[in-house]
């Protein structure tokens, strides 16, 4: 199942001037980004730079203090004061459009693998159980977990849990997939499995925003890379340019540290 290609002209998602503070700490200081349909945007940046907060704003786990998120041309304005009901509608719009893959998987421990995947389609989207289960099963088979559909998450390795996490997001058929450091809790030898699946998704035409420190993945899969530091986008560009030959000294320093952590 791949998303239906539509007019590639307008971006699927665009943010303008996104701001977010926690108390007196301003974490996002005006984030402008755009994700065209079927493209992959990779966010990199040092710890605490606001990468997770950007992703969480995109699916309304955080409500920005200011700025606009435009989804398929519909503008959700977070600067203007809004009623509870209006905020609720903005939240639902964003959540319906996106699926999220977490660093620590956040699978439902009390549900089997299959139930984890079908929970959203059946309970939220109201799709028929048989149909949702058949689809979930074939997605699980695709990621090599066909034989695990009836076990509980604690019986899986980290890599397997994260594959379930990805399938759970895919099963919602979102327009946009969000990944927050999906491989950074995994053992090095299984990181590749998960990245391979993500690469296949990109090739199938899913629109993705990925926070990752895997520069190889960024280089191969990203259409655009953003370097975030201190809540601002310091530099953006095609992966070849930004990762090989960054213009900003801060980007260069960050990449040097990532490639040679012991120097």
């Amino acid at each position, binding site marked *: 199942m791949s998303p239906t290609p539509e007019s590639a002209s307008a971006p699927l998602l665009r943010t303008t001037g996104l701001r977010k503070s926690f108390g007196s700490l301003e974490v996002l200081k005006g984030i402008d980004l755009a994700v065209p349909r079927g493209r992959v945007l990779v966010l990199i940046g040092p710890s605490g730079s606001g990468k997770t907060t950007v992703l969480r704003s995109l*699916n*309304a*786990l955080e409500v920005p203090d200011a700025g606009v998120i435009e989804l398929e041309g519909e503008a959700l304005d977070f600067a203007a004061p809004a009623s509870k009901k209006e905020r609720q509608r903005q939240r639902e719009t964003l*959540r*319906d459009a*996106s*699926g*999220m893959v*977490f660093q*620590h998987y*956040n*699978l*439902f*421990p*009390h*549900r089997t693998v299959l139930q984890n995947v079908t*929970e*959203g389609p059946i*309970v*939220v*989207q109201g799709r028929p159980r048989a149909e949702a289960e058949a689809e979930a099963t074939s997605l699980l088979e695709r990621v090599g977990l066909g034989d695990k559909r009836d076990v*509980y*998450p*604690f*019986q899986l390795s980290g890599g397997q849990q994260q594959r379930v996490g990805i399938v*759970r*997001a895919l099963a*919602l058929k979102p327009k946009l997939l969000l990944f927050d450091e999906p491989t950074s809790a995994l053992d090095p030898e299984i990181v590749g499995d998960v990245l391979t699946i993500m690469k296949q998704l990109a090739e199938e035409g899913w629109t993705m925003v990925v926070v990752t420190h895997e520069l190889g993945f960024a280089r191969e899969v990203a259409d655009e890379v953003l370097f975030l530091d201190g809540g601002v986008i310091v530099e953006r560009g095609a992966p070849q340019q930004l990762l090989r030959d960054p213009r900003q000294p801060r980007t260069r320093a960050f990449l040097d540290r990532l490639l040679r952590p012991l120097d």
Partner: protein
Amino acid sequence: MDWNLVISSLGPLWGGALLGTIPLSLASFALGLVLALLLALARMSSIVPLAALARLIISIVRGTPMLVQLFVIFYGLPSIGVVLPPWPSAIIALSINVGGYAAEVIRAAILSVPAGQWEAGYTVGMSRVTTLRRVILPQAARVSVPPLSNTFISLVKDTSLAATILVTELFREAQRIAAFSNEFMLIYIEAAAIYWIICLVLSTAQGRIEKRLDRYVAHA
């Protein structure tokens, strides 16, 4: 020992247990848990007056003797025109108590579920209420079984207080038989034994429920 009395009293005592103590416990526990969940949610609410009210109710329930609460309801309320029969009075007092104690248990259990579980619920599109119902409460239930079992066992014993407001249950039957037979020691020990048996059964049930709810947890 008067074996005839032991045997002839078994009927009425078990009758009191089966028709009084046990249904009174079950009804009060069921109602009490509903009240407890509402109080726990109110206590965690961001609406300040609601949270404060829940806190006040919990504090009063836990800070006053149940016998006094029973008397207020049964003997006190009539003076302001509210006359309640023994059974409803007992159920109200007992479930309020379960509510007060279990509210804190449930609140702690809900808070023990990692925030990531709420977020996972939201990202598959669930509302707060759906996430609570389908993601958080099932996980909270697992950790709250042991403390709630204790609450239930205390409740079973506390139902004996209902004897003071004329509810026919195990202890009131024991008082009645003891009074006309004059065998206080024998009858009260018999009553104690029956309470003990009920509580043993409950502990066994607790073990089974815990095991069932533990099926999705890794065991070291």
